[in-house]
């Protein structure tokens, strides 16, 4: 879908992106995370063909977006962190203008406006002026504008900034729905909690470099981490699990065991059946999902440790 290779971008005296390479899978929601100033917005702007990099290339389904920015824009949507709306236009006019500007044929525009408004749940606001909308609704209108042409790729820079909790939840639902419709989405934020709800992948950027890129959805992995808790006084859990094929990295904490196990539903069902057959008093059996924040911090710590090693070497 989106492929970024050896991207380099400089500001005077400062390299914002340093040899950045990654690929985005279709129909995924990638959380682009990193501290302020890490290069998230610059990376998104380069991917949106709004800034030209010093070196490297960005391709969207094989199309070099910097060689053909207009064609690329017709296949992607972008919501910058500081976006604006035409406050004096109605929601319908905003969407119609955007559809026309993105080359949607005249006969299809009304249907596209209706569809985008329906997806963003602002159908009842089509006649309202954009300037009269609440912040949450403005955000929905901005996203509706970005998806009016049914782009294959949607780039969102800090989309939840300034939204109240209810609006954030609404945004999560909207993004999941867009992904279900087949859209590939990259969302940047430095607030990890808001990304956790809907992200399938995590792309960690720090000081202009990609630290890590991995899938987050446990079901997309071959193995998952499972947590089993038994009632107090039950000591046989570790014995039973030790003899169970496929269990690795078993750890015990109190009356709770966590371990790696094949991810398939059949395997997990069989394991649960064996635990029941052993007459263990299981009170919890769950996939132990690693939180986005935990995963991010783990990567940052690993990167810091890797960086510290050469310094020790130099010191000798």
């Amino acid at each position, binding site marked *: 879908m989106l492929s970024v290779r*050896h991207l380099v971008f400089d500001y005077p005296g400062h390299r914002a992106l340093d040899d950045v390479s990654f690929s985005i899978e279709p129909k995924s929601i990638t959380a682009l995370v990193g501290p302020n100033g890490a290069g998230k917005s610059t990376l998104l702007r380069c991917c949106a063909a*709004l800034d030209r990099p*010093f070196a490297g*290339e960005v391709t969207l389904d094989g199309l070099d977006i*910097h060689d053909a920015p207009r064609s690329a824009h017709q296949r992607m949507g972008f919501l910058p962190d500081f976006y604006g709306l035409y406050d004096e236009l109605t929601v319908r006019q905003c969407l119609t203008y955007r559809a026309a500007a993105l080359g949607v044929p005249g006969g299809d525009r009304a249907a596209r406006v209706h569809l985008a408004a329906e997806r963003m749940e602002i159908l009842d606001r089509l006649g309202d002026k954009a300037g009269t909308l609440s912040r949450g609704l403005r955000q929905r209108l901005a996203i509706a504008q970005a998806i009016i042409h049914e782009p294959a790729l949607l780039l969102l820079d800090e989309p939840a900034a300034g939204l109240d909790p209810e609006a954030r939840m609404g945004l999560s639902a909207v993004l999941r729905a867009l992904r279900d419709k087949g859209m590939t989405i990259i969302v940047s934020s430095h607030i990890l909690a808001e990304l956790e709800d809907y992200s399938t992948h995590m792309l960690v950027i720090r000081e202009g470099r990609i630290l890590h890129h991995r899938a987050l959805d446990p079901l997309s992995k071959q193995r998952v981490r499972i947590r089993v808790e038994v009632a107090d006084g039950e000591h046989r859990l570790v014995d039973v699990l030790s003899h169970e094929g496929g269990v690795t990295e078993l750890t015990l904490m109190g009356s709770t065991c966590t371990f790696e196990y094949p991810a398939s539903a059949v395997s997990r069902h069989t394991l649960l059946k064996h635990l029941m057959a052993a007459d263990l008093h299981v009170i919890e059996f769950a996939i132990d999902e690693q939180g986005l924040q935990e995963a991010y911090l783990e990567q940052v710590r690993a990167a810091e440790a890797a960086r510290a090693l050469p310094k020790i070497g130099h010191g000798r």
Partner: protein
Amino acid sequence: MWFSPELQRNLWLQLSWGRVLAAPILIGIVVAALLASWNPAPSHLAEYARWGFVLLLALWSTRRVADSLAEEVGGGTWESQRMTGMSAWSMVWGKLIGGAIFPWYCALICLGLMVWFSFKASPADLRIALGYQVATLLLAAVLAQATALVVALLLLRKAQFRRRLTVTMAQSAGLLAFGAAVYWKYSAVPLAAEIGTVRWYQQEYPANQFYLSSVAIFTLWALVGAWRLMRAELLYVNRPWMWTLFTLFCMAYAAGFVPWDVEPLTSRLASACFVGLTLTYAGFFGEAKDPVRYRWGLARFKALHWWRALEFTPWWLISYVLAAIAGGATIWSIAMGGELAWQNTWAADVQRYASVLTLGTFAYVFAGLLLFALRDMLFLLWLNFTGKMRGRADLSGLVVLAIAYGPLPMLLVGAGAAQFLPAAWPVAVTNLMALAWPAAEVVVVWFLLLLRWRQATRIEILADDREEPSIGTH
């Protein structure tokens, strides 16, 4: 919708039914009031209507066009516009016409009144002149708006986009362009132009047709400029062909006006050199001087990616090279015995004030001019590559150059140090030895620029294993 979506948006915003109806009613009330009170002659009413047109388009519409861009940037919608599938041309005319659609609507009513009252006032044989007048006004209005948009886009690219300042500067530039376009028509050669001729490349042309054609051609250039700048904003690759053509056109256009028949080739080459140097400065101040961009261009140049390197070639360099070619040709022409037509006119006046200037030394003067211009460009780049100065480097540079070419030579002469005049004033360069002054200045400024360049393009190294990236095909 067959027209630009940008125009459609502006129509929604600016042409409400209330405004569409109110404009002719208000103008009608003013005309009726004039007729009822003073009952001026139709020729006077035509004059008032013309002033209405001029004020609406030269003052208001230029402001509206610049503001339509400034509003987008300030309101955060410009990035969304850049993400659209609209072509650069569609954006340009959507903003030119759309951004000022209401002033245009009002101005066209005034123009209609002007034509109506002119018909009522003038004898039939003046109707041809009226046609030229209408054409000149319309072209001047488009020229003014395109110039305002060009200036607004230039300031946007220079990353010094302050809304009020941008709009004011763009409006002023538009106003100047409008004034220049109608000046010939109404002031310089008022009635003589109607029947007179213009001598260009030793051919006589009817003045009216010549001026109108000139305004039309420069309007076209302004539109081309706006289109190229919009292309750059939309991240299209822009190679500097248009700037090169524009410089060549201006040089050739100006060279045609040498009014004397004394050695026209030398004089024409000299005119072309002056115009080339003027555009060198104009190109420099018009362009963004981001050291990162210069570094990208140099990297591509070093990697022998000529085609890509062209994209980063600064305008001033192109104009300077063309001016240098014209200047070199002028020197060659003088050396071959050619004589400058001006030697009999203003050069004699200059000589009275600067005793060191002697006739027949113009070859040195042209070499000096080229060296001083190169020194200025390097000095201005030095200022622009200074981190803390970057935001106000151009303005500071202008002040320094104004002092260097104004009070400084006067001080030298006043202090009895006229022998040092060649170090400060290009027209005081009278022999090969005197040329050493500007040449030495070029070397010194070049060295300072190199030091500043290394500092400005040093990238903050955050990890030990970073290397200069391969620029690949971009």
